[in-house]
C-alpha cells in the first residue's frame, strides 16, 4: 500500500526531512470519506447524511502544487480539514511520506501537524485578536516544545521572510494590519513549524487583486526557498492555473477529473470541468458571455443524484449516466502525468453514445 510506482517529479530534490525518498508522494489520500449526520425528531436520531466527502483518493507529489477547484458546497474545505485532522474521517487512510497517519505504527498526530499546516481564507478570524502577531507566530513552536526565546527569534525571522519588518510589526495586533498583511502573518504562522506541506484554503480569495498578486508571488518564493509542497484550494480558476502543477476538480464530494494543469485547462474531459472553465470571465469587453455555461445550483449533497452526480446539469446526459456511476479509475496507481476523468464519455464501452469505441492505447 505504501510502496507505489510513481514517477519522481522533476522538481524533487533531496531533503533531510524526507522519510520515504524523493519518489514517495508527500501525501497519499486513500478512499477518504466523511458523512455528516442530520439528526431530527424527539429521539435525535440520524435521519439523513450529508455526503460531504465521498470516497476520495489522490496523492500529492513532493514539491508540486496541487490545485483543488469546485463550486461552494462540493466538499473542498471539508477535505482540507480532514487532511489536517481538524475533523475525524469516517473511513479511509492518509499516508504521509510513506507512513500511515494516526495508526499505532505510523505518524502520530502532532507529527502530522508539524508536517502539515494550513492557511485559511478569513485572515482576521484565524488570528487571535488578543495576541500580538509575534506571539501568534511563536505559539505553535512553543506548544511543540521550543523555549520562548527561541520561538520568538524564529517568529521574527519568519516575519522578515514573508515581507513584514519585524521591528515594526512584531508587537502589533491583528486589527492594526491590512488584509494582505494579516494573510502574510497567517502564512508565517503556518511556516513556524517547518512544515513539508501547506494547505492553502482560499488563502487569496478575500484579497484585492493587487494584494493577491503580492501574496501569490510570496507563496512562489517561499515554496522554492523552503522546498514546500502546496495543496491550493480555490474557486478562482485563473489563480489555480497560474500556481498549480496538477489540478483536481471536485463535484458533490467526489473527484470528477484530475490531471496536469495544462491538460485540464486545454483539453478538459469532464463536462463539468468544461463548464467551470467556461465560467471564467474574459477581460475583453467584446467577449461577453451571453448564456451562463452552468445553469442552476449544485444538487443537495444529502440526496445526491443517482449514477453520475453531475447528470442533472449535464448537457450530454443519457440513460447510462442515471443508472451507473462513472469511475475515475485507479488514481493511486496512475502517474502524475495521467489525465483521468470520471465520465462515461471518456470510458470505452461505457454505453454512452459519445464514448470512444476502442480502448485507447
Amino acid at each position, binding site marked *: 500500500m505504501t510502496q507505489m510506482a510513481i514517477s519522481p517529479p522533476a522538481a524533487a530534490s533531496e531533503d533531510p526531512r524526507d522519510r520515504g525518498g524523493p519518489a514517495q508522494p508527500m501525501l497519499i489520500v486513500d478512499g477518504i470519506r466523511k458523512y455528516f449526520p442530520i439528526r431530527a425528531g424527539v429521539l435525535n436520531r440520524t435521519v439523513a447524511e450529508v455526503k460531504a466527502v465521498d470516497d476520495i483518493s489522490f496523492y500529492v507529489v513532493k514539491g508540486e502544487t496541487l490545485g483543488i477547484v469546485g*463550486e*461552494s*458546497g462540493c466538499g473542498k474545505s471539508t477535505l482540507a480539514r480532514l487532511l489536517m485532522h481538524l475533523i475525524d474521517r469516517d473511513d479511509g487512510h492518509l499516508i504521509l511520506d510513506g507512513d500511515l497517519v494516526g495508526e499505532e505504527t505510523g505518524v502520530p498526530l502532532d507529527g502530522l501537524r508539524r508536517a502539515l499546516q494550513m492557511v485559511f481564507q478569513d485572515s482576521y478570524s484565524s488570528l487571535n485578536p488578543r495576541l500580538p502577531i509575534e506571539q501568534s507566530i511563536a505559539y505553535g513552536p512553543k506548544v511543540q516544545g521550543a523555549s520562548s526565546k527561541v520561538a520568538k527569534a524564529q517568529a521574527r525571522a519568519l516575519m522578515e521572510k514573508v*515581507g513584514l519588518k519585524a521591528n515594526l510589526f512584531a508587537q502589533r495586533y491583528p486589527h492594526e494590519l*491590512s*488584509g*494582505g498583511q494579516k494573510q502574510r502573518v497567517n502564512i508565517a504562522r503556518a511556516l513556524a513549524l517547518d512544515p513539508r506541506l501547506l494547505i492553502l484554503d482560499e488563502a487569496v480569495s478575500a484579497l*484585492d*487583486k*493587487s*494584494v*493577491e*498578486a*503580492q501574496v*501569490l*508571488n510570496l507563496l*512562489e518564493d517561499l515554496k522554492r526557498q523552503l522546498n514546500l509542497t502546496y495543496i491550493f484550494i480555490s*474557486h*478562482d*480558476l*485563473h*489563480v489555480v*492555473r*497560474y*500556481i498549480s502543477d496538477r489540478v483536481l476538480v471536485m463535484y458533490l464530494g467526489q473527484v470528477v477529473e484530475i490531471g496536469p*494543469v495544462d491538460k485540464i485547462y486545454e483539453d478538459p474531459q469532464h463536462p463539468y470541468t468544461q*463548464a*467551470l472553465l467556461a*465560467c*471564467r*470571465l*474574459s*477581460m*475583453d*469587453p*467584446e*467577449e*461577453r*458571455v*451571453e*448564456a*451562463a*455555461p*452552468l*445553469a*442552476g*445550483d449544485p444538487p443537495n449533497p444529502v440526496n445526491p443524484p443517482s449514477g453520475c452526480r453531475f447528470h442533472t446539469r449535464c448537457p450530454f446526459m443519457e440513460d447510462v449516466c442515471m443508472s451507473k456511476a462513472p469511475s475515475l479509475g485507479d488514481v493511486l496507481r496512475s502517474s502524475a502525468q495521467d489525465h483521468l476523468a470520471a465520465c462515461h464519455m471518456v470510458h470505452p464501452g461505457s454505453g454512452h453514445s459519445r464514448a470512444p469505441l476502442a480502448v485507447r492505447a
Partner: protein
Amino acid sequence: MNDMTPTNLSGSMPLAAPFVRVKDLRVRFVSREATVRAVNGVTFDLARGEVLCVIGESGSGKSVMMRSLLRLHPKKRTVIEGSMQVGEHDIGAVSDRVLSKLRGSTISMIFQEPMTALDPLYTIGDQIVETVRRHEGLGREAAWARALELLELVRVPSPERRLKAYPHELSGGLRQRAMIAVALSCRPSLLLADEPTTALDASVQIQVLVLLRKLQREMEMSMIFVTHDLGVAAQIADKVAVMYAGRIIEYGTVADVLNRPQHPYTRAMLASTVKDQERGVQLEAIAGSPPDLRALPDGCSFLPRCGYAKPECAVAMPPETVDARGHMARCYRVGVEGQRLAFSAPAIQPSVCTNASQLAAARAEMLGRQA
C-alpha cells in the same frame, strides 16, 4: 482644468440630458480622533439605460460614493458636499420624507452579502410584498401576484415555493436573485449594485451577471455597479470609472479603459490581475498599499506606489485630461495625441519593482534626475 461636459463627447454617443449627475462630490467622516476623507471630488454623468462600473481596491471610496446617492451614511458623522442629481431630484437637498419615497422606487440597491441585507425573520415573499405595497399601494393579493412575477423574472426555480421560504433556506445564488427581485420590485430607474457577485461562485456569478444585464436592458435602467474585479466590469459595463483614494483617476468606455488603459494605476491593476500568465513568472504586483484616507498628501495620491512619478506629481493632483472620445485620465504623463489619450513613458523607465524599497530607490533616482 479641462472641461468634462457631455457636449465634448463626440461620435455615436447620444446627447440627451444625463439621468444621474454627480458633481464634485466630497464625503468626509468626522470623529473625535480623525477625519476620514473617503470621497474627494467625484464628478460623472450617467445617461438613462447606461451601466457605469466603478472599479477600485478596498478603501478607494467606491462604496461610500455610491451609498451617498441614497444618503445611507450616518447623518451626524458624515459631511457630504457637492451635488447629486438623479432625474429631477437633488439627492443632497430633498427632505427625508421624499427620500424614503425615492428609496426602493426610483433608486434601488443590491448589496454584496444577501444574507445580511435580507431580513431573516420574514419570508422572501413578505419582503417583496412590503416594498410593493408601500411604494405602489397595491392590495395584498395583487402584491403577492407581483412578487411571484418578480421571482419568475429573476429565474428562481419553483417560485411559488420560494416565496414562502426564509432567506436562510436558500442557496447563495438564489438569495442574491431574491434580493435583485426585491430591488427591482418597483421598477427603479437607477439600480445601485455594490459588489453583488463577489461572494458568489464563478458559475453562479456569471448567471447573475447575465441576468442583471438582461433585466437592465429590458427595463432600461441606469445602473452603477461597484466591483474590484475587472473581469466583471468587462462583462457588464458601458462606462468604467477607476477610483483611487476617493477620486476618479480614469474614466471612459469599457473598451477604452480595459484595452487602452492610460493611468499607471489602471495599467498596474490590469497587469497584476491573474489571467493566463505563464507559471513561474512573477506577477507584476503593485508594491505598497493604498494611502491613509485620514491624512491624504498633496499631489497625486498614487505617487508613493507609482513607477512613473515626476517632480510635479508631489505638488498637486493632476488635472483631468480628456480626449475626443471622452476617455479621461488624471496623470501628468498622459496627454492627448491626435484624437486619443496617450501615455508617454519617462526617459528612464524603472524596471518592475517588486518591493517598496526598490521602488523608493528607483523613484528617488528618477525624481533626482528630472528635477
